[in-house]
């Protein structure tokens, strides 16, 4: 459980995502999951560190304001 609510969190554009799984081991809190061919970012687990965003080979991940 994260202690501080981040200003932004990562979201995935499933229309762009290729399900390659590259972002999973990059996520320090292990908040990204790939199950039944769908990638999800757990908004409650994401700490907003952005480490998954630039490495995505197709640019499917982006940061958005955490409401």
């Amino acid at each position: 459980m994260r202690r501080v609510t981040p200003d932004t969190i990562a979201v995935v554009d499933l229309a762009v995502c290729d399900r390659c799984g590259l972002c999973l081991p990059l996520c320090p809190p292990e908040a990204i999951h790939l199950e039944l061919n769908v990638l999800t970012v757990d908004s409650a687990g994401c700490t907003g560190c952005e480490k998954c965003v630039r490495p995505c080979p197709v640019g499917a991940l982006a940061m958005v304001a955490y409401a």
Partner: protein
Amino acid sequence: MPDVDVLVVGAGPAGAVAAWQARLAAPALEVVLLERDRAVGSPVRCAEGVGDAGLREFVNPDGADWVSRRITDVIFQAPDDTEVVLANCGLGWILDRTRFDAYLAAEAAAAGVQVLVGAEATGMSRNGDGRWHVRVKERGKDELYRARIVIGADGVETMVGRWAGLDTRVPARDMESCAQYVLQGIDINPDAIYLQFSNAIAPGGYAWIFPKAVGVANVGLGLVALKTDGRNARQYLDSWVARRFPSAARTSYTVGGVIVHTTIKKTYADGVLVAGDAAHMLNPLSGGGITNAMKAGRLAGRTAADAICAGDTGERRLAAYHKAWMELLGEDHLKYYRIKQALEGVDDASFNKLAHTVNNIAPDKRTIGRVFTHALIRHPQLIPVAARFFV
């Protein structure tokens, strides 16, 4: 509830060989090999290149239908496109992974392994009975498998490792983001692999052309995202392909991550072994992982079979797998990783200079040994760049 001895998650080279070798070591064991996708070997997320010697430890590539192309030459390309040709410098193969992975799975099946496609492990827990209970989603319904040993061969995103409490995370600087097209109608030497080094083309990595047939090749690149100008791997690849092969037909594309790190600190837990990409068992210089995965799979399969036959699947016994891997290749990967770090400061001008001076060596005298010696004298920091593809 199916009760099995060894449950292997992932039917790539690591998993298929692990399952196969477990059955060979102990034919009485019940071994199940799970593949998440609908077909073993597909989608291909690989440049498909492999050295001859490592491959032959397991299978015979001569005349095999899972081979696309026999490779004898390596062409290094400097950032300014200067080519350094190393003719007949060793034997390698470009595989057809869709057929190759299926072939390995068939070998496993012939040894008595049950292969299940479209079967995805979605979670697992350790129960009081000393078994792992693994949830498997197959054709829309959940099945619970009880297994004495689970082998996680589930690739870069490994969930088995996470579920077993192993640390499989990767720092961003050690993850190469890769994109690749299959290009048709290109004018290349079909007996050579091409490797181009340039911080402008593939920062922190390299670009490759691996021929699959005359005029057809896997054309791709891997880069370290932290070193880019903000574009992603596919955008870098589009720029390179547009310049090099403007009229080629792009008939397929793939993307993926290659972990250029070293073996995870702990590849085992009670009743669990992790092998291949899932345990970061790649050559961190080349990013090559196929034969590494097969060798790890062989160790994992045999270790699992022995442990079950001995009635002890605890982590103290399974630690022998980690030790054997580290002695076989893991320690070498630590060395390559240090070389990779040392190379990170090399700029494009130095690569160009090296290519120009190496070409002063007559082509018929341009053996790997002479190129190494030359590089050692002129640009000592560059030797491993050439060496990385032959180790």
